[in-house]
């Protein structure tokens, strides 16, 4: 080969290199200045399938009971208005973080709850431990609540993983590192599993997973901030509703994860939306409760709550009343149609983290009870439609989780080292 031929070959090789450079970075992206454009969509992770276990993927219980996150216990759960503490289980939260604690999830197989120490337990209905699971790698442990189907329990934790465990023995079925942190609760809906996860900059995503393999089916666009908000599902619109700390609220298509509409608000959105009658209801740190038409993304109403809010609105079945807590120290009944405040119960507790539970009243047919923290160490029971106080009971500790009703019992995970209490 002559030198000239070699130079010619080098020239051709140079063109190939130039082409490869172009193909690898066609937009001449710079890492420092255009980070977002290099990673223009959230991460998708493979899952690790450790011991396959096929289940129905239909929720037997989950955070706020159902995919619409109504906060209304099924009719099989009818605790009496005047309950008392019957069990006080071992301490588990240690108040590593100030956010609201993981709420218990209960079905006929047992009680499932996590703690901010990273431990997750299955207990029997009387509070005796059946098995435990530990997650490391996070100083915040478990914030979210579990979702249950017929065979598996799904739990997402602050180390960024979502896990599926065998309800029977606690063995890990699969795990998927969906994000860098997860504070939200998983959602079981339409035969799939959904989770809002947090990532480092850029931030926030909603993922849909196959509940039997843990494989990611799609991820949404970046939510723009941590998503402490647990997603809700509108069956009618086939849309997922979720908020983020960026102040954005998203409606996301169940089919492929594309954004159907999104709205920017002036405050963070941490609460879980309530889906009812084609409308998404959610709170914001902008001090308002908002109602948006799920299909069109148009605002229906906004009601000023007096202080920033991250609770979820709880539906009162058979009425148009939704119940919310506010930072100004009151429980409020809102008209879901126009946002008008129907009643207020002032209790003076300015914590704005806990949402209300609604159950059927076993003593008054067709009537409902609302359960809420009233003061730091107090659980009160109200008439859900009128807001009239029926009962209050002193607790051994404060709580920021949501009480969970099962049969004639209420389960509450207390803050700090106060453990789980069972009321009947």
């Amino acid at each position, binding site marked *: *080969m002559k*030198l000239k031929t*070699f130079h010619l070959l*080098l020239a051709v*090789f*140079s063109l190939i*290199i130039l082409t*490869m*450079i172009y193909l*690898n*970075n066609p937009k*001449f*992206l*710079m*890492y*420092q*200045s255009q980070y977002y454009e*290099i*990673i223009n*969509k*959230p*991460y*998708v*992770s*493979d*899952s*690790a399938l*450790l011991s396959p276990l096929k289940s129905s993927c239909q929720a037997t219980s989950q955070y706020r009971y159902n995919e619409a996150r109504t906060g209304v216990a099924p009719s099989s759960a009818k605790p009496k208005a005047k309950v008392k503490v019957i069990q006080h289980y071992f301490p588990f939260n240690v108040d590593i973080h100030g956010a609201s604690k993981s709420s218990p999830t209960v079905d006929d197989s047992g009680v499932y709850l996590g703690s901010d120490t990273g431990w997750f337990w299955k207990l029997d209905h009387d509070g005796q431990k*059946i*098995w*435990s*699971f*530990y*997650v*490391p*790698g996070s100083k915040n442990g478990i914030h979210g609540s579990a979702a249950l189907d017929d065979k598996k329990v799904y739990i997402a934790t602050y*180390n*960024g*993983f979502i*896990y599926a465990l065998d309800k029977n*023995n*606690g*063995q*890990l079925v699969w*795990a998927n*590192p969906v994000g860098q942190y997860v504070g939200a609760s998983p959602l079981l809906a339409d035969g799939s599993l959904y989770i809002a996860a947090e990532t480092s900059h850029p931030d926030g995503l909603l993922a849909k997973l196959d509940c039997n393999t843990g494989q990611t089916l799609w991820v949404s666009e970046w939510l723009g901030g941590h998503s402490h908000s647990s997603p809700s599902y509108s069956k009618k619109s086939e849309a997922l509703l979720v908020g983020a700390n960026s102040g954005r609220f998203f409606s996301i298509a169940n089919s492929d994860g594309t954004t159907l509409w999104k709205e920017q608000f002036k405050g963070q959105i941490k609460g879980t939306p309530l889906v009812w009658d084609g409308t998404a209801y959610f709170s914001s740190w902008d001090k308002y409760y908002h109602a948006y038409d799920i299909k069109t993304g148009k605002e229906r109403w906004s009601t000023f709550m007096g202080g920033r809010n991250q609770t979820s609105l709880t539906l009162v079945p058979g009425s148009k009343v939704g119940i919310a807590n506010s930072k100004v120290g009151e429980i409020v009944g809102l008209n879901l149609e126009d946002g008008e405040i129907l009643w207020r119960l002032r209790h003076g507790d300015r914590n704005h983290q806990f949402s209300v539970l609604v159950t059927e009243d076993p003593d008054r047919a067709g009537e409902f009870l609302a359960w809420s923290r009233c003061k730091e160490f107090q659980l009160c029971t109200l008439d859900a439609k009128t807001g009239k106080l029926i009962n209050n009971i002193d607790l051994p500790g404060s709580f920021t989780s949501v009480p969970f009703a099962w049969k004639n019992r209420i389960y509450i995970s207390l803050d700090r080292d106060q453990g789980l209490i069972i009321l009947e």
Partner: protein
Amino acid sequence: MTYLKAQIKTISSKPNLIWYGFFLSLTHLWTFFYWNKNNFFVNSQSSNNAEPICFPFFPDCDLFRQQLSPESWQMVLYAYLITTVITCLAWFRPKNLTVGWILLSFLTLFKLALHLSNYNFMGNYHYMVYVISFVFLFFPAKEVIIKLMIVAFYIAAGFLKINIDWLSGAAMITTPWLHGAVLNLSLIYVLFLELIFVFGLIHPHKWIRRLTLLQFTCFHLFSWHIVGFYYPMVMFSLLFLFYYDEYEQIKNKKTPMTPLMSFLKGQLSFPVYGTLILFIIMQIIPFAITSDPSLSGSARLSSLNMFDSKTHCHSLLVAHKEKSSAHLAGPTKNMGVRLRCDPLVFLNHAYQLCRKNHLNPEIERLSLALFSRRVTSTHYKKVLDIPDVCSIPNPLWAEVTTL
């Protein structure tokens, strides 16, 4: 023995090779400074300060390391320094270069032994020095092979850089002086330097050679503030043969050996082509056994281990018990950027637990999965998925054997 004597004779007959022996010995001095900086060597060798990470072919290296106290390891390092200084001086005794040759051989093997006792010492800069040292000490046609191998190093490194990580600047360990479009253009220029202009190092035209050498010199000087002193000093030492030959031509009008044309015409000896082919095969192996070598550990032991991408990862190490299971924390000790997502680090961690868990019959099995991605990628790939780590005799090879 005759063959080895012939190697010493070859070196003795050429001043450029004698000087090269000195500069190869000097690389050990740079290594001493590098390992001694911030007590890196002693901290890495001391089990109290470091994650016990081993090469797969020496899985219990930490047990070996524990035989010596940190003070003793410091003494070993000083012994290495003393041997290095003596070796360097030995090259200035032209009448008896056998001593220099033996000492450099010993030093190379001694460093290799230290190196293989700890995976924390892995790095491109060592790999290249080993290759060139072995060629220098034991191979025929030394000058030709060394020059071609150095060109091959740059080309291999250049190929590893054709990706968004390098082109965007995401792979930079620290923020360089240059930024924005200037940085991006510079990164493209480096690709051309390593893949195209590099042939200028062995070009018959003297100005092309000198211009190329000047560019590589500037490149390594510039890289100093990003990668530290060690890499550039090693490269300057390895490039010394080129510097010396240009110096000889300027001073004594002696035409240097430029193997480009004879290489292209197939006129070089079998060992030259054989060495190059072997090197190419070793660079291809990781691509043959893993989809993304930058996320791998043992899969790329045979190749240049360029820092081609920053990575993020999540590990899933689970201790399975009858009525409880636990997702265990991964390696907790501070890991360098290169190592923090290396599967070998996690396999070593699991292997340590397997050894300890022989005492804990409650644990039924230990499973390990590792999910990794390049920082510029949106896909966390499952690079490890081992249901029962402890049932594998040497799990450090698991990344390769479980493929």
